[in-house]
């Protein structure tokens, strides 16, 4: 289940992660095991949590919350498509599918039935940097989630039948999301260009031919390499009691052996010296569309927050610059989006406009260029700056409303920022960005000679022209 939304910010960042993870410093345990706890003050909206490591390296985050009698288990493995070999793309995502097959003690095809029978639901997703597994259950079924996740981590079972079936399923997933939808391949085309010569150049769905070519031993190796407690973070949020839950976690996950993790591939994109353009001529493209994208730093970079606010300023809300100009005033676009796509070891900022019928792509491109240049030349007004800050505060205030979204956010901040408490304090980082910063990052990163331009001219159905 590859992320389907183009601008979904799924996984974030830590530029130094490959260094930390390859270092044997990871083999620390019991004595460095003191839990840290963040308490919520009465009446505040802060999320209270406690976190610690098991001796085998599994990081655990517990966020008890009795608002509703539910519990969400979120298990994040720090492995994604960027950890794949270039000739074995799609492995991380394929393995996500295999993790629903079964384990030593769970018969093939029973995982979803166990969860359904317990009144819950489950899902999983794969991005460049991570593979995650969610289980939501009535609170009295917490142990079931722990049992299933620990079974899958300890001894998942991968057999030929499952591999053959999922090979077909994943190809259908790719056709549905990428190949049979207008602009469905946009993300793939963009990554290939903007992240060229890095392991981010391919998307998590990967290439079907590599999945077909791989042997079952390769899948098992992938599992043994990456699905280790010391490469995983378990976050629980919901109605449970801390001490008994800790005991359960120790029982279920404690016996799972740790292992040294391999060094991760270095992400060293070559310097881009001139604009790159790419024309995508695909049938069933109803309207002209254009994407301008620039490579930017990863999410933990000091400029990440300014880049995020800059993209809001450009295209969030009907008073934003690009909406006003392209959609409202000039009426050349149906929609326009700006998205920061900041990952663990690399980032991208993109602006995507879908034109109205009959609009020349050059017109769209010229207007986008003009608006970017205007930010660079004149900066932003105080009024716009305040508006962008309020928008971010509102967005963050509404961001973590359920046990499931809280568990996910906690794990995310731990794994990619090493600061779980950011779930409560991230707004401060945004508020530290100055008005000048917005202009500065626009000038620094959105330059004409580092632009990547992807164009979709409108095209009808393939057979239309061949008919008399």
């Amino acid at each position, binding site marked *: 289940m590859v992320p389907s939304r183009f601008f979904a910010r799924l996984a974030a960042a830590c530029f130094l992660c490959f260094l930390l993870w390859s270092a044997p410093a990871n083999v620390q345990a019991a004595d460095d095991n003191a839990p840290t706890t963040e308490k919520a003050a009465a009446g505040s*909206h802060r999320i209270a949590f406690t976190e610690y490591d098991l001796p085998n390296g599994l990081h655990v985050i517990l966020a008890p919350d009795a*608002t*509703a*009698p*539910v519990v969400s288990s979120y298990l994040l493995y720090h492995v994604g498509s960027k950890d794949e070999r270039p000739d074995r793309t799609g492995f991380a995502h394929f393995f996500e599918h295999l993790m629903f097959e079964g384990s*030593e*003690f769970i018969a093939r*095809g029973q995982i979803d*039935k166990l969860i*359904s*029978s*317990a*009144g*819950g639901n489950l899902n999983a997703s794969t991005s460049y940097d991570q593979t995650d597994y969610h289980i*939501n*259950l*009535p609170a*009295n079924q917490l*142990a079931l989630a722990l*049992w299933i996740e620990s*079974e899958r981590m300890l*001894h998942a079972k991968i057999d030929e039948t499952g591999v053959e*079936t999922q090979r*077909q*399923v*994943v190809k*259908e*997933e790719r*056709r*549905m999301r990428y*190949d*049979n*939808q207008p602009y469905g391949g946009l993300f793939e085309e963009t990554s290939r260009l903007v992240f060229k010569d890095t392991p981010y150049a391919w998307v998590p769905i990967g290439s079907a031919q590599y999945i077909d070519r791989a042997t079952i031993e390769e899948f098992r190796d992938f599992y043994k390499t990456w699905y280790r407690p010391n490469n995983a973070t378990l976050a629980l949020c919901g109605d449970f009691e801390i001490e008994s839950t800790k005991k359960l976690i120790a*029982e279920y996950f*404690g*016996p799972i*052996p740790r292992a040294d993790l391999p060094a991760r591939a270095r992400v060293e994109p070559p310097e881009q010296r001139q604009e790159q353009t790419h024309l995508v001529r695909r*049938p069933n*493209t*109803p309207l002209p569309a254009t994407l301008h994208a620039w490579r930017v730093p990863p999410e933990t970079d000091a400029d990440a927050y300014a880049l995020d606010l800059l993209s809001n300023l450009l295209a969030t*809300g*009907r*008073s934003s610059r690009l909406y006003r100009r392209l959609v409202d005033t000039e009426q050349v676009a*149906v929609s326009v989006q700006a998205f920061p796509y900041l990952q663990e070891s690399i980032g991208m900022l993109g602006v995507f406009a879908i*034109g*109205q*019928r009959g609009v020349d792509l050059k017109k769209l491109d010229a207007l986008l260029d003009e608006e970017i240049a205007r930010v660079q030349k004149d900066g932003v007004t105080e*009024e716009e700056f305040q*508006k962008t800050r*309020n*928008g*971010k*505060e*509102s*967005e963050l*205030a509404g961001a973590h*409303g*359920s*046990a499931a979204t809280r568990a996910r956010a906690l794990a995310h901040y731990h794994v990619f920022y090493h600061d779980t408490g950011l779930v409560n304090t991230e707004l401060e980082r945004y508020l530290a960005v100055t008005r000048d910063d917005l202009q500065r990052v626009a000038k620094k990163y959105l330059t004409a000679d580092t632009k990547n331009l992807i164009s979709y001219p409108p095209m009808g*159905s393939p057979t239309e022209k061949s008919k008399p």
Partner: protein
Amino acid sequence: MLRFLVFLCCASVACATAARADLDRAHPPAPGPAPAASFPDYCEITLPNGLKVFVIENHRQPTVTFRLLVRAGAVCDGPKPGTAEIAAELLNKGTARRDANAFAQAADTLGAVIEAGAGEDAAFVYASGLTRFLPQVLDLFSDAVLHPAFPEAELTKEKARSLSQLAQARQRPPWLLSTLRDKLLYGPAHPYGAVPTDAVINALTRADVQAWHRTWFRPNNASLAIVGDVRADDVLPLVERAFGAWEKGDVPALQLPALPAPAQTRTIHLINRPGSVQSTFAVAATGLPRNNADLPELGVVNAILGGGYSGRLFQNLRERHGYTYGAGSSFSSLRLGGIFAASAEVRNEVTLPALQEMLAEIARLRDQPVLDAELAMQRNYLAGNYLLSLESPIRTAERVQEIDLYGLPGDYFKTYARRVASVSTERVEALAKKYLPDADGVTIVVVGEARDVRPQLEKLGQVIVYDLNFKAQPAAAN
């Protein structure tokens, strides 16, 4: 070498597990006592002008959401299809006090989101933002609801955008599928089955959207839910001030064509979308309106067939055959009628076998008894997931307003989990017979590459082929 490693790994695990004799890994853990699925408390009042107001307090986040529902959906379109949809889009594009840009500027400055839209039965206006801006958000929200100006220039822009969006939709298989399905099952003359066209959009005038608002936007034809970090005592006086002067008015009775009788013969409809690498298809039939008392229990029948990963369609079409990424079914119900549809998207070459498996699964559930374990699983799945959904206060607001819109019993959701959890095998069998379509009465709709798919479909019966504008092609030309 690999085997050796696997063996070592297992051995060490066995030792570790043995050290914890109290943990039984071989069986699922026993659950604790089940929590009760009680519907959350909420406050309800009716203003003198007839506006029903619900307050659902939830203090988890410092935000507030207003959700207004007006019985002004596409069913009210009359001779001009698309009126409700375009008119609703214009509610936040200019009011008596603010032009479109000033309105957008004001909302964005607060970091608030104020949006409107229309579905088949109702139009909606939402506003959400930080609790500390509640008075300002409410001011903008009520301005959009009560005093939209429908500027001619904004209507012109909206129409142009809609024409482009329609061109885009005509290349999207899910949209093509549901539009033709609805046309066939609800009939093209009924607003539920209306097909948007360029001509329909071009024909809309400012007088049409003004009349829509004047006629249907009445407090006695609406309900308002307020959700979030507020106290009813604090927010109700503000709401009364904002909406108390909204004038009530008589709302005309709807004049609608009768819905077609359920189909008796199987028909196959193929929208030719050249270049498709998948067939997107549905096996559909007439369903039932939202207030039909059988719906909660029928949900169990649907879950067995096509609800979630454990449903039969998913298990068969995906897990057994690898035909698709997903397959499922649903009874979608509106005020006046509904549709049953089972659907999937599969690679072109397996279109026929996938459809045959789908038809066979529907027939199997209609004609053969359900196993106790499967029934128990799906009952628990629905009751448990209902419990999980109670965590969301917005979902609670939607439900409270749903009761009002569709005239459901007041305890509909309070008793929902209990009803679902106690459905018997006999009841499932009776409901499956009554509501699942007979293989002869289904309407099959496929969007795909006709060159590849049509010969396959013809093995099921005569195929009517359409272009992307839903025009049936003359048989000879195909």
